[in-house]
């Protein structure tokens, strides 16, 4: 299993002074779906945005495919990392097809145009996720759940070795949740992609992720294989400040 992301002593605080991350040490590997969990405001989303290259002023080392993140340009990062945000609001008319096609932007040619293989990729991913019928609909008119699937499609089309997802299924019903994660599992195994998912539903995470990482107070509190999580009830009760009995009910 190859190392895709290497993080050493990552510290980050917002301009208004809040310390969010206080020394994260982590590796992420290919063919792995890693769930990132933790109490609200513990820095999960921030961590993703730093790795995605959105926040640039961090302390510490981050290497993606052995390249130092801070030395990479926007385009290089976009071919290594794709990012699925929690939600997006746009006032303009974009069709679903347009939105997914944007995922091919890292590969735009000189005259700024998409190629035929780009368009084919869009169709393939749409079919894979079962949203072909949404292609001509306006993105802004979709339900929150439909929008989420489209955003996932947008990042799959980007074909990066690393995918970062921030609560990608929060608006989806259980049926779609399972379908999405089935797809993600397939993609991860087949393409050797490393997927980091910020997720609140620990049970779902435990079923689909290979590994679960918990962040509390800006550091990694627990890093366990998913099938082993049952042995960390004490730790979990401490992280979430709930009773061990609640932990058992919540995970099992």
């Amino acid at each position, binding site marked *: 299993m190859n190392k895709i992301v290497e993080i050493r002593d990552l510290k980050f605080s917002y301009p208004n002074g809040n310390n969010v991350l206080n020394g994260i040490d982590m590796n992420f590997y290919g063919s792995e779906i890693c769930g990132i969990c933790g109490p609200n405001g513990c820095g999960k989303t921030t961590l993703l945005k730093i790795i995605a*290259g959105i926040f640039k002023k961090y302390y510490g080392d981050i290497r993606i495919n052995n390249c130092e993140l801070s030395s990479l340009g926007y385009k290089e990062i976009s071919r290594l990392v794709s990012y699925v945000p929690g939600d997006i609001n746009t006032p303009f008319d974009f069709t679903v097809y347009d939105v997914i096609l944007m995922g091919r932007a890292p590969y735009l040619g000189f005259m700024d145009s998409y190629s035929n293989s780009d368009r084919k990729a869009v169709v393939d991913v749409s079919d894979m996720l079962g949203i072909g019928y949404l292609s001509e609909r306006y993105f802004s008119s979709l339900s929150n759940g439909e929008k989420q699937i489209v955003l996932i499609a947008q990042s799959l089309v980007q074909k990066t070795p690393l995918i970062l997802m921030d609560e990608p299924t929060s608006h989806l019903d259980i049926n779609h949740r399972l379908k999405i994660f089935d797809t993600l599992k397939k993609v991860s195994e087949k393409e050797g992609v490393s997927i980091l998912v910020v997720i609140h539903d620990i049970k779902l995470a435990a079923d689909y992720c290979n590994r679960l990482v918990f962040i509390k107070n800006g550091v990694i509190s627990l890093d366990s294989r998913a099938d082993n999580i049952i042995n960390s009830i004490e730790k979990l009760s401490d992280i979430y400040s709930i009773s061990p009995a609640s932990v058992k009910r919540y995970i099992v």
Partner: protein
Amino acid sequence: MNNRIKIIISVAVFISLSYLSLSLPFGCDSDILINLRIPKFLGIFISGFSLATAGMVLQLVTKNPLADPFVIGTSAGSMLAIILLEILGIYSYGFVSFFFITISALFFTYLAYRISRFSNSASINMLLSGVAVNSFVLSIIVLFVIFSKEQSLYFFHLSFGSFSYSNYTSIIYSFLTIIVSSVFLLIMMNRISILSFDEEKASTLGVNVERIKFILFIIVSLLVSASVSLSGIIGFIGLMIPHITRYFFRGMSLKSLFLMNSVYGASFLLLADVISKKFFYPLEIPPGVISSIFGAIFFIYLVMGSNGRKRTN
């Protein structure tokens, strides 16, 4: 009615308006046609094209459907430079003047942008900071005019504009500007599209957001300067026309949208000219008056429409 038919109809309307603008009032000799009417037509075309495009770009960059180069201070920035050059007595139709006018417009536009970024509050968007910058620049202009000897400057340049004095020399740089700007915009259209979708996603898709924004501000400044140097300040074109174009051409690609938008901008100013010539000749209704009347009504309609009604396009 699909988009292709709409395009043909729009172009046909544009051609008819052009013909009317050139032929009204009836009866003119070739001298007048070549020396007065054609330059005036070119001036109107360039101005409408530039302002509509500048408005569309600003609305995409700020993701604010109310953005317009007049409101956020770009036009005022151009005007300040023109007034200064006139007071110093060195205003000409040449490259140096045009350069200063553009730099001035860019400075104040970028200033409005930086002010909006500086604030951590999400509500201080560029529109608000732009309004503040615009008021500031207009006040400076008035001060200059009061203390200069030539108070007629104020009247001529600020009184809603006129294309009657266009000549081939005066339109050269403006014409070059719209060609250069259009080429750049067409090359960058997909990235602009992504930028207008979502800025965070744009950066993760390989778009250098700050750099593209800066380039776009330069283009907007160029376009607005092209228009203001021809005819003074004409407001609301940049606000209205992109909405009208988007309304008629739902779902069209951004590249085609940009071209149709420019055609509509030119058509609108030509319509204003035709109205003035048909109903008021030999009085001339300045084009800025007509655009302001329509624009203000349109603005109110926009603001009212955004209350309560969810934007499901």
